[in-house]
C-alpha cells in the first residue's frame, strides 16, 4: 500500500491527466465489518483511491462490496480499522476540494418535490444561497440531458431519467468524489450503456474520482481504470486488475478485441474469486 502523500507520475489515462503529488482521496486501512449478529461481512481491507481514479468494486453477492462502499460513505461505520478522506476524518469533508456525493441503487427522489428541488437538496441542506444553487442545479440538469424537466415531478419521468436526476443531484454539489452503489443495476442494458458513456464523459471533464459498485463485467471494464475483484464469505479483496486503456472509451472500444480480452481476464478473476468464496450460494445479509 502506498503511503500518503504519494507521488504519481503524470500519466494519461483515457485522455485525462492524473495530477501529481496529491493526497489519496480515500484510504482504507485494515477496515473490517462484523455485524452485531456476528455476521462477518468484510475481512480487513486495505485500499487506496488515488485522485482522478475510476475504481470499480465487483464480486459475487455477499462479497461485501456494498459494505465497503457503505464505509466509504460513512453511513456504515467500520468495526475495526480506519478510513480517511483526503487524509483526514469524515467531518472535514464537504469543504471545497473535499466534497463527496453518493448515488444510490435507486434514484431516491422525494416524490413530492420537483426535479429541480430534488436536485437542489444537497445545496439547500448545505445552505448555499438560492440563486447560486439554482444556477448550479440548472447546469447539472443540462449536463445529464434533463434541461427543461426541472418543473416535473419524479413520477412523471422514466426510470432512466430518474436515475439521471439523482446523478444531477450529485453533480450539483460539484463533487471531487462520487460514490455509486450499483446505480444503473435496475435499468435495461441500452439505457445503462448510455448512462455509462455519459458518466465517463462527466468523469473525464473534471477532476473527479469515482468508486463504483457493479455486478456487470462489461460495465466494470468499460468504465474503470482499476477493478477490485472481491470474494465472499467472508467478504475480502481477491484481486485487483488495472484497466489500462489509453484510447477513448466509446462504442468502438466496446466492440474491440482489447475489450473482449479484458472482459475475459476479469471473468477469470471473478471465477477464481467465486471459487475462493465459501460454498453457500446466495448472499447472507444480516
Amino acid at each position, binding site marked *: 500500500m502506498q503511503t500518503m502523500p504519494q507521488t504519481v507520475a503524470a500519466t494519461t489515462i483515457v485522455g485525462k491527466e492524473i495530477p501529481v503529488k496529491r493526497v489519496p482521496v480515500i484510504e482504507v486501512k485494515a477496515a473490517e465489518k462484523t455485524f452485531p449478529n456476528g455476521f462477518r461481512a468484510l475481512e480487513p481491507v486495505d485500499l487506496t483511491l488515488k485522485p482522478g481514479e475510476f475504481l470499480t468494486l465487483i464480486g459475487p453477492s455477499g462479497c461485501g462490496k456494498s459494505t465497503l462502499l457503505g464505509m466509504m*460513505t*460513512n*453511513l456504515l461505520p467500520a468495526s475495526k480499522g480506519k478510513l480517511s478522506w483526503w487524509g483526514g476524518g469524515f467531518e472535514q469533508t*464537504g469543504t471545497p476540494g473535499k466534497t463527496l456525493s*453518493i448515488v*444510490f441503487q*435507486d434514484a*431516491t427522489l*422525494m*416524490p*413530492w*418535490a420537483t426535479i429541480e428541488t430534488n436536485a437542489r*437538496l*444537497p445545496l*439547500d*441542506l*448545505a445552505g448555499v444561497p438560492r440563486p447560486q444553487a439554482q444556477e448550479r442545479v440548472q447546469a447539472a440538469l443540462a449536463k445529464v440531458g434533463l434541461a427543461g424537466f426541472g418543473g416535473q*415531478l*419524479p*413520477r*412523471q419521468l422514466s426510470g432512466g431519467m430518474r436515475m439521471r436526476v439523482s446523478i444531477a443531484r450529485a453533480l450539483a454539489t460539484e463533487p471531487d468524489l462520487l460514490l455509486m452503489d450499483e446505480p444503473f443495476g435496475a435499468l435495461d442494458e441500452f439505457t445503462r450503456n448510455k448512462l455509462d458513456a455519459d458518466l465517463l464523459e462527466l468523469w473525464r471533464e473534471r477532476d473527479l474520482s469515482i468508486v463504483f459498485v457493479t455486478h456487470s463485467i462489461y460495465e466494470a471494464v468499460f468504465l474503470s481504470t482499476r477493478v477490485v475483484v472481491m470474494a465472499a464469505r467472508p467478504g475480502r479483496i481477491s484481486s485487483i486488475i488495472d484497466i489500462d486503456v489509453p484510447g477513448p472509451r466509446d462504442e468502438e472500444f466496446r466492440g474491440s478485441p482489447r475489450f473482449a480480452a479484458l472482459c475475459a481476464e476479469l471473468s477469470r478473476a471473478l471465477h477464481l474469486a467465486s471459487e475462493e468464496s465459501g460454498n453457500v450460494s446466495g448472499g447472507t445479509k444480516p
Partner: protein
Amino acid sequence: MSQFQLSRAAALPFIGPVAVGVILLVLWQVLCTINEVPIYLFPKPTDIWSSFTTNLSGLTRASSVTLQVTLQAFLVAVVTGTAIAFLFNQSRIIEACLFPYAIILQVTPIVAISPLIIILIKDTGTALTVCAALVALFPIISNTTLGLRSVDPGLVNLFRANKASRMQTLLRLRIPSALPYFFAGLRISSGLALIGAVVAEFVAGTGGMGSGLAYEILQAGFQLNIPLMFAALGLITVIGIALFLAMSGLSNLAIGSWHESHAEGRR
C-alpha cells in the same frame, strides 16, 4: 378503496351517485304509497321534504349548533393529535410509554364517558366539544405518528450523507412524507368529530340542554314527528358528506398528484 372511488366520483361524473339516489328515492316513495305505510311508521320522501321546509328555521339553527361543535372539536383534535404525534416521533421510548393510553381513547365508548364529562364541565358547549374531540383524536394521532415514521430509508440515508440537521430532516423529509397519512387521518377524523358531537348532544340533550340536530331528533321522537326526525337525520348526513368532501379537496390541494393514492392513470 372507498375514498378513492368517492374522490373519483366527485371529480368525474356526479351523475352516477345522483342517479342511484334518485332511483332509491322514487322506489321509496312508490313502495310507501302502494303499501300505504303510515307516516308515523315510515314517512315518504315528500313528507320529509315538506317537514323540512316547514321547520326550516329551527333546523338551520340546530344545524349551525351541531356544525359549530363539530368544527371546534375537529380543530382541537387536529391540533392536539398532531402535537402528540410529533411528541411520539421524538423518541421511541415516549411513544412506547404513551401509545397504549392513546388506544384507551380509541376503545372507550363516548356514550359511556360523555355523561361524566358533561357533569364535570359546567359549560355544555365546551363539554360537547371535549366529547367530540376525544372521539376525533385517535385517527389523527395514529395516522400522523405512522406517517412521520414512514420515511423512505433511502432518503434518510441521503439526508444523513448530506449532514442534514434534525430540524432539516423533520421539515424537509418527515413532514412531507407524513402528509398523505395525516390527510387520510383528517378524513376519518372529520366524520368522527360529527358523530362525537351528535352522540354527546344526545346525552346532554336528555338533560334539557342544547339545541343541536341530535336534540331535534330527540324532540321529534318524543312527539312521534317521524318526518322531522328524518329531516334532521338527513341534515347530519349532508354535513358529514360536506366535511368529507372538504377534507378530500384539501388533501388534493396539499398533496396534488405526487402520492400514489392521489394519482390517476400513469401507474
